[in-house]
Each structure stands twice: as C-alpha cells, then as structure tokens.
C-alpha cells in the first residue's frame, strides 16, 4: 500500500508522490476561496406558493380519470380488436367498476381537501402580511412618538430654563436686612414717619402689615393696641420681628393673601412694597387686597415719591430690588378703577432744611421760583396712599 497523508492507493504501480505534487500545484489557484466549506445555509422546508398553486392546478386537471376511454383501433383486424376490447371491458366492469367509482370519489375529495388547504394557506398568508404591515406601522408610530416625546422634553426643559431666567432676571441675592439697616434709616425715624398713618387704623381689630420688614409698623400697632400680624418673605426680617414678639408669617405676600379668607382684614398696610412689583404683580395684589378687605376696611401703601427728582438718584437707584416707582396720581386712578373709595395721598419725608436755598434770595421773585424748583428737585421723599373698600 502506498500511503500519503492525503491520498493513498492499494495499487503498486501508481506514483502517489507525483500525484500529490500535482495536487498541491493545482490547489494554489483555489487558495482563499472557502465558499465550498460554507456551512451557514439557512435551510427550512419552504412552501413555495407558486409550486403549490401549479400542483393544485395539475390535480384539478387529472383527478377525474376517464372511465370510458375511447377504444383506439388501428391496423389490421380493427373491427375484431375493437370487439374483443369491448367484450373484455364489459366482462371486467362488474369487478372494476365499483372500485373505480370509489377511487374517483376519493380523488375528488382529496382534490377538494387540498384546494381548501391551499385557500386557507393563502388566507393565512394574507392575514400574516396584514399583521406584518400593522406591526410595521405600529413600530413607525412608536418611533415617531418617541421623537415627539424627545422634542417635547427638550422644549419643556428649554421653557423651564427660559422661565427661570425670566423669573430670576431681577433677582439679586444679598443681605437685605443689613442693607436696610444701613440705608433705610434709623428705625425711630421710620416709626416717627409711620406714626401719622396710625390714625387711619384707629379701631381696627384685624390688621396685616404686608412686607413688614424689621417690624417698625408692627411696633406702632402694638403701641396703639391695634391687633396686627406681619408677613415677609425674608427670613432674617421675620426672625427680627419674632424676636420683638410680633406674629409674623414667613411667606410671599401674594401667596399669603391667596390663602386668606375673603373680607378677613379690616386694615392692610404695605410699607415700601409696591415699588418692588411688576405691573402684573401690582394688579394682582390690588385685586387680592380688595377681595380680602372687609367693607370699610382701610389700606395704606407707602412708596417713594417719583414726583421728586432726587428720589431717583437716591432711594430708587439705591435699592437694586426696586422695579418701578409708582406715580401717586396713577395709583389713585387705578385704585379708583378697582373699586376703592376715599382715596387720599399723604406726602412725607420732606427735604432736610440744609438743602433749602430759596430763603437765601432776597428777591421774592427768584425766591418764589427757587421754591418751585426745590419742590421738584427736593420734594417729599415718600408718599402714602390711603384707600377704603
């Protein structure tokens, strides 16, 4: 036996080594082509619809075996052949006939069964295709929905950012109590200024000081035995008031009013508050106040007086949380519009005497003009507006 790793033969007269050399030489051309080794063939019994239909058509054609085939007669002795064939047929009919009929019946049933199976298959195929289409659509919808959701989310977060930016555009964080201490002026001075408003709260039993700050007005209320509470959103302010023994709520004043009963208060005081509000906020606040005040209840709002030009260079610009100064005549008009009665404007904080120059002029004409100038330039720093429901 001649053996080689790959090929061998039991015949002695064959040169296996030479053959092997030739094989190796020939195999070079096939190097790298591994297709012959491919194994990843997805094999499954496929029902090819065309073949199925074609075969069914053939079945329809051939199931009905002709029983009385014409007798073919050719060549010599045709009549005899024909006769013999007829005789044979007649002779075997009693035996073959019934089986034949049965066979035909069987064939017919088979064909019918197969036909209905093919139809069922087709129907199911349609159903399957429809279902696939539906799935496709549903998948499309799902992915679209995901896209919409994503863009909505993005929009939402954009909006949140914008709202936050808008809301905080005018915000500034600093020690407001310290600021007040330094620039608002001594508490006694303020108390003194505010004392003139006490008369309007005379006899009131349920007063609230909205934006009570360091509690100067609350001190006065207590002094005059007027029951009053305070509201401020600044925690240090609230703490200061509480230390003095006042009842103070730490919350936003709009929020406080929203949560109060209607016609609950008979007196509301707002000292240096409305200049911190936007138009919207002011309108909302005034309407809320009107709602929460009892009939005959009084409201006093103190605010810097924009009729005096020096207020702009001092009070207005000094406090960075100021939004806009309210003209007393505007306020008067708005309050009237919203239903308040008995509106009255009280000017306070007159100009210090050292700023006065009019008396230095001997000429009464100049002196009088200077007086007017002084009033414009250095008039009353604040005003309060008093209104009744």
């Amino acid at each position, binding site marked *: 036996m001649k053996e080689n790793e790959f090929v061998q*033969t039991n015949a002695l007269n064959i040169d296996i080594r030479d053959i092997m050399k030739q094989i190796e030489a020939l195999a070079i051309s096939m190097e790298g082509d591994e297709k012959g080794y491919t194994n990843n063939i997805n094999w499954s019994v496929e029902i090819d619809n065309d073949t199925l239909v074609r075969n069914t058509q053939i079945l329809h054609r051939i199931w009905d075996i002709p029983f009385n085939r014409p007798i073919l007669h050719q060549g010599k002795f045709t009549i005899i052949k024909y006769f013999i064939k007829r005789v044979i047929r007649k002779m075997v009919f009693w035996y073959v006939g019934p089986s034949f009929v049965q066979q035909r019946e069987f064939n017919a049933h088979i064909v019918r069964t197969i036909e209905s199976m093919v139809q069922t298959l087709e129907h199911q195929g349609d159903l399957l295709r429809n279902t696939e289409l539906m799935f496709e659509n549903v998948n499309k919808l799902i992915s679209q929905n995901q896209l919409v959701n994503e863009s909505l989310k993005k929009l939402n977060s954009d909006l949140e950012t914008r709202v936050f930016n808008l809301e905080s555009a005018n915000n500034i964080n600093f020690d407001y109590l310290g600021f007040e201490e330094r620039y608002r002026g001594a508490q006694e001075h303020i108390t003194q200024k505010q004392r003139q408003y006490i008369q309007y709260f005379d006899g009131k039993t349920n007063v609230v000081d909205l934006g009570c700050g360091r509690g100067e007005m609350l001190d006065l209320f207590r002094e005059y035995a007027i029951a009053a509470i305070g509201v401020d959103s600044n925690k240090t302010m609230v703490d200061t008031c509480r230390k003095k023994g006042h009842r103070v709520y730490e919350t936003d004043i709009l929020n406080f009013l929203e949560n109060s009963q209607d016609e609950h208060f008979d007196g509301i005081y707002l000292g240096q508050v409305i200049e911190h509000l936007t138009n919207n906020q002011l309108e909302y606040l005034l309407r809320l106040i009107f709602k929460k005040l009892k009939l005959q209840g009084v409201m006093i709002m103190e605010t810097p007086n924009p009729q005096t030009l020096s207020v702009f260079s001092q009070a207005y610009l000094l406090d960075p949380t100021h939004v806009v100064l309210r003209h007393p005549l505007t306020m008067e008009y708005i309050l009237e519009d919203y239903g308040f009665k008995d509106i009255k404007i009280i000017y306070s904080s007159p100009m210090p005497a050292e700023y006065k120059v009019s008396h230095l002029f001997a000429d009464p004409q100049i002196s009088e003009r200077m007086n007017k100038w002084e009033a414009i330039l250095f008039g009353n720093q604040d005003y309060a507006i008093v209104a009744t429901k």
Partner: protein
Amino acid sequence: MAYYLRGETAVRLIQLLPTISKNDAVSNHALMIKNELDDLAIENEIIAENIDPALYREAKEIKEYKKKQGDICIYHFSIVSHHVFELLQQFDGVKMMIYHNITPPEYFKKWSGTLYQATSQALKQIRSAKGLFDLVVADSNFNRDDLLSYGFDNVHVIPLRSPLLNLQNRNSDHLEKNRKKNNTILFVGRIAPNKNPESLLRVFYYYQKYFFPDSSLELIGSYHGMEDYLEYLKLLSRHLGLENVAFRGMINTNDLIKAYQSATIFLSMSEHEGFGVPIQEAMHFRLPILALNAGAISETLHTGGLLINEKNYKYIAALANILYKNDELRKVIQEQQKLVIHDKYSIENTSVKRILELLS
C-alpha cells in the same frame, strides 16, 4: 447434489428479510442467492415483511410461509424488523445470518425520525440476536469487525457480488473518449447523510469553478424518506452556484449501466459503508474511482482506485482533475479494476456455493 443436502434429506432454504425492493443492495443479494439456488434446483423461498409490488413473484409474505421439517434459514440483517424476526425465532432448523451493516443512527437524527428509530432499534436487535444463529456471515471485514464488537464470534466473510457483474462490459477506446467528452462525476447510492452527498457538492464546486465549467455531477439513488435532505442538498447546490447537478433518483438498470459507462469519474465521499456495491459496479464498468477512505471502502475498492484520507475539497477537486486528464493513470486504474473484479469478486469467491458449503 448430495453436496447441498444435509444427510439424506432434501433441504429447503428460506431467506428472511424485512423489506424486499428493487435496486436495493440487500434485496439484490437475496435475489441473487435465490437465482443461484434455483439454478441448482434447490427448493427455496424469500419471505419478507414488505414486498415491492414489482417483486411479488420472487417473494412471499410471512403468512404464506408453511413450516417444513429441516428448513434452513438465512436471515439478512440491515435494519430492524419485527414480524420477520419473530418468525426467525420460531425456526428450529439451522439459522444463518448475513450481516449487511447498520448505519449509525446519528446520521439520521436531523433528517428522518423514522430511520433514526429504525437504526437505533436495529442496533438493539442485533445485540439481542447473538447466540441465535448457527452461522454468521459478513460481506466485508469491516462488517465482521462490527459483529465482533456486538459480541458475535466465528464470523465468516463472503463478499457480495452485484448482479451487474454478470453483465458484459465493453470498455473500448470509443467509450473512454465518450467518458472524457462528458466530464461527468458520478455517485451511486441512496441520498442519505451517511453517504455524504453534501461533500460531493462541495468538491464539485471547486472542480467546476476552477477546472471544468462544463462538467456535471450526477447522483443516482433513491431519496425516498429523505425528501427534506434532498431539498437541503438542492439549496446547497444553488448556494454554491453549481450547474449541471442532477439528482436522478432511482433509475432502471439499463440507465444505471449507461451512467456507469458514460461517467468520467466515480467519486464516493460516503462516510459509512458496510460494503460499497456501487464501488464494485463502477470497477466492473472500468470507471476510475476516487473514494473517501471510510468503512469498508478500502477493502472493497482494493487496488481499483484512489483513496482519500482527508475531506480537503480543494485537493479532492485537484485530484479529480488529474484523474480526468491523466490517461495513463486512468488506464492503470482500469487495468487494476479488471484484476480486482476478476480475482477478488470472482463467482467462486462470492458465490452462494460458499454459503452452502458453510451450511452443509
């Protein structure tokens, strides 16, 4: 004819097999034995469980068998059988088994539950049958070793002889020219995984693509019960882009002879072969053979062709190319085939007489 008698009594020989059908190696063997016994005027019968309608004359059903004193039984074993095996057990005369091999069930696991079951049960049955027979014959050394592993001993080896070997073979220059013109690779055998037709396609891929675009591959053999596997092979063939591949199924003897006579190379990639009748037939028709060295192939082929030790498809394709082109090599192989058929598979060596000698 005392030679064929036991003592003074005339014997009757009963061949038992599960299924008898046309163009099946085991059936052919039984029929050949029958013919020879008929020629020797020895009374004999073939009894089978399933009979191909074409063979109703040659075989009888179990119920037709009438017991007779002194009946000798030859049982052909290749697949599981129930009724025939029962009949065998009732025999009280001499019992002989001719073993034709059982295909390992694993080959059928993926493709045919029926054959998987049948072969699995056959393995159990053969183990249980040891001791049942007075004589055991295998048709190849490979099958003898199989039987030894099942616990049989004293196994005689008598090779098969295909009935086609009795037919005249004309190998002329004209025929050889025709073979080369056709450039056809032939395989004969059932379409079954153990015969490994898949590898034939893979080898043919390289053969057709790199050497002979006009070449063709012919597979002859029944695919009954293996329809799915056939579909798979067709798919593989399409996947590989092969052209001129024909699964011819079962064909009649004349066409089979024509196929042997007109093909260029017989290529067997079979992985499990108990004997390899088509190898013998191809040799008879002087068709040069390339065969994977598996099972009984080497002993059946003897010197009549080239054996392949490795499933290297490219090398096999190259070797086929050489076998196509090298006329001298073809001639040498064809001469060897003549010798093998003449010596190894002579009528004397394979004849029923040898079986009868054992029985007497």
